[in-house]
């Protein structure tokens, strides 16, 4: 499975997030994650998605600072 229309989805997501502050946006994304997780259902797929999301985290400023100093 993949996006039917990635551009349309992204645009809709941006449209939904734009009026929200950080806290409201975080809550929105929490609800969205739970709704989508229910749509997917299969534990194996969800597990892989969680790992993928964790692996794709960009290095933080302090992480790279630590690395350069060591």
């Amino acid at each position, binding site marked *: 499975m993949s996006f039917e229309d990635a551009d349309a989805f992204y645009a809709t997501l941006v449209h939904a997030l734009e009026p929200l502050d950080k806290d409201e946006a975080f809550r929105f994304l*929490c609800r969205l994650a*739970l709704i989508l997780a*229910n749509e997917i259902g299969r534990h194996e797929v969800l597990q892989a998605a969680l790992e993928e999301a964790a692996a794709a985290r960009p290095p933080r400023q302090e992480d790279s600072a630590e690395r350069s100093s060591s």
Partner: protein
Amino acid sequence: MPLRAESSEQNHCFAAAPIPESARIEPERAPVVIAGAGLVGLTLAVDLVLQGIPVVVLEKRDRFGEGSRSICQAKRTLEIWDRLGAAEAMLKRGVTWKVGRVFHREQLLYSFDLLPESGHKMPAFINLQQFHVEAALIERLQALGASVRWCHELKQLAASAAGVLLEVETPAGSYQIDTEWLVDCEGVRSCARRALNLRFEGEIFADKFLICDVKIHRTDFPTERWFWFEPPFHAGQTALLHRQADDVWRIDLQLTRDADPEVERDPARVTERITRMLGHSDFSIEWVSVYAFQCRTLERYVHGRVIFAGDSAHQVSPFGARGGNGGVQDADNLSWKLARVVSGRAPPALLESYHSERKAATLENILNSTRSTNFMSPRTEVTRILRDEALALAGRHSFARPLVNPGRLSVPAHLTASQLITPDRDSWSTGRLAPGSPAIDAPIRLSSAPGSPAVDAPGRRGPAQSAHNGTGAASDDGWLLRLLGNRFVLLVQPESTDAKLPRNFEAGAESVAILAVGRDFEDCGGLVKQRYDLTPGAAYLFRPDQHVAARWRVGSEELVRQAVNRCLGLL
């Protein structure tokens, strides 16, 4: 409002037991000593005595523990106590319930009905104060000619390969017991665990709970389990309201992490909180305590000749009713093995399976308890927001309700990974009876007593009602689990009505009772056949703790003998 005195029944003082005469000259000899007369120690004591093993039960106190403590007695636990002949008194006194409601603020998120299917002797749950349960077990123990040694405190022990030498202190002086086996059921403050210098592995959570027993003099609350996230009367926290016997209600209120237990226990403060919760002050407080959630276990439950059971082996947070119910299953698992080791019918190595089977069950309990705790009491700001949004979704959409976790209630352990179990080779439609699973009850009629009172029909009446309508005694033998008892049993569906089956089958030192459908009992409601997926020639082998050891579409003497030997640790 001052704290009321505990009810006189709970506060009953037992007389200190005398020191046995012979123990004044040399150490008393005993095959098994049980330290601690709580519900786990008492369950084990009754079970061992029923299996012909004399026990010494040491209890340092002279009375029951304070408060209601472990109140939710689950179906499997009741079935174990019924096997011991102690459940009738508990059913009469306890409060049967099956409906739970979960609220978020003012809103009912969902309700659940544990819906016990009909045709079981025991209900899904009863609520009964732990001291009432212990009183019933003590009465049963006395009826069997045994007793508890009140005010006998285990002070020190010296374990060797052959046994354990115990130092016991009583008001009349000290004495020694030289025992082959010590089973420690002393709970959180165990002497044996300290003496062996054993540590728990696991977590103590930062959150604290205020736990109260409250006698409510007028109430509209039904006999249900009510749980609140962020209740209007207790902002930002959780609360639980649950009915027990004697018009006493259990109330659990979550406290903030920095709460001071001494301040929170103050009666005026507790009264104020509960008045806010109930909307009136027509109640009296019977007991108050503050506790922290814990999910901890010993690494091993068997240390040479010292065996740990119940809270002295493991502790879980209380919202799944897994502490007491888990401990009783420990006793159920241990007693038949220990009885056979003591009487030389099985090697001591069999006790290793007590550790492996019950450790697996504990890890399952800890997993469930930890998940519930993390939902009820999120550890970070971010996970708190996630939790709140899950609750918000659950209020609008049924799909999100499974995410809401106010405690996952105790279910019996399925020992399907155990070495003692013979895995299925044939195909069966009943996965819930796969080898390792506990037996499932069904109404039967004993063939040997055609004139005996009719068994309750498995109609619309629930099992709870049948146990409570006063006919419980008449239907006492009309249940499959009662017939299985505490022995090895082969349940057989004969291939034909004229099949010649023996009454017993000798497998080494073990005698297996053969129960043939139609010969030994009638499957009057057809539920045995249906629940066990019985076809002509099919057979189930049950362990003495009523777990399925093996099953075959077509059994043979050799297959049964192998399965029994495997159960005894002989293969």
